[in-house]
C-alpha cells in the first residue's frame, strides 16, 4: 500500500515537473525579452554603462530570470568582455532555468556583437534579438499547449499502470 502510494507520488511528481518546465519556458522567454527591452531603454535613453544597466534590469525583473542578468552584470564588473560575460552567465544558469539551448542563442549572438558595437548599433541588435525571442516564445507556447497536460496525465497514468502490474 505504502509502496503504491510512493510509486504513484514519484511518477506524478516527474510528470508534473516536466509539465512545469513546459509551462515555465514561454514565461521565462517573455521575461528575457522584457529584460532586453528594459536594457534597450537603459542603454539608449538613460545612456547608462552596460554593467549598471544590466543590474538595473535585474532589479526590475522577477526571479529566476533576473539572476541571469545579475550574473551578467557581475561578470562584466569582473572585467570580462561582454561576449564572455554573457556566455558564462548562460552556462551557469542553463540548468536552473526552463529555457532550452536555442532560447539563449539570440542572447549569445548579442554578446558576440555587443563588445564591438556602437550605441545605436547595439539598439538595433537588441531589436533583432527581441524579434527572434518573440518567435521562440510562440514556438514555446505551442509546445506548452501540446505537452503540458499530456505530461501531467502521463505521469499519473504510468504510476497507476505500475501499481496495477505490481499488485
Amino acid at each position, binding site marked *: 500500500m505504502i509502496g503504491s502510494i510512493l510509486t504513484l507520488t514519484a511518477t506524478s511528481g516527474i510528470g508534473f515537473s516536466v509539465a512545469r518546465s513546459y509551462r515555465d519556458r514561454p514565461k521565462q522567454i517573455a521575461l528575457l525579452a522584457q529584460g532586453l527591452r528594459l536594457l534597450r531603454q537603459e542603454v539608449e535613453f538613460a545612456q547608462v554603462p552596460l554593467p549598471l544597466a544590466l543590474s538595473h534590469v535585474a532589479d526590475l525583473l522577477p526571479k529566476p530570470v533576473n539572476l541571469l542578468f545579475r550574473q551578467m552584470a557581475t561578470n562584466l564588473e569582473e572585467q570580462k568582455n561582454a561576449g564572455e560575460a554573457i556566455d558564462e552567465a548562460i552556462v551557469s544558469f542553463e540548468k536552473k532555468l526552463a529555457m532550452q539551448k536555442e532560447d539563449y542563442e539570440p542572447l549569445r549572438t548579442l554578446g558576440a556583437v555587443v563588445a564591438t558595437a556602437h550605441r545605436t548599433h547595439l539598439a538595433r541588435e537588441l531589436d533583432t534579438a527581441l524579434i527572434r525571442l518573440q518567435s521562440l516564445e510562440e514556438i514555446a507556447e505551442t509546445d506548452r499547449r501540446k*505537452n503540458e497536460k499530456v505530461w501531467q496525465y*502521463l505521469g499519473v*497514468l504510468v504510476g*497507476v499502470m505500475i501499481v496495477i*502490474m505490481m499488485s
Partner: protein
Amino acid sequence: MSPEMRAVFQIFGVGFVVALMNTILRHADKEEFAQWTTLAGVVAVLVVVVGYVDHLYQEITRVFLNTQ
C-alpha cells in the same frame, strides 16, 4: 481474491489505462508514442497471461495426450 480473478482485474486495469494514454497521446498529435504505448500494454498483459497460458497448455496435453 483468487489469482485468476486478480489477473482478470489486472488485465482490465492495464487495458483501461492504455486506452486512456492512447487517447491522450493521439489528442496531442503523438501517434507514434500512442502506438508504442499500445505495444507496451500488450506486452504487459502477455507477461500477466503467459503463466496461465502455460498452465492451460499443460492441462490440454495432460487431458488429451495423457503424457503426465
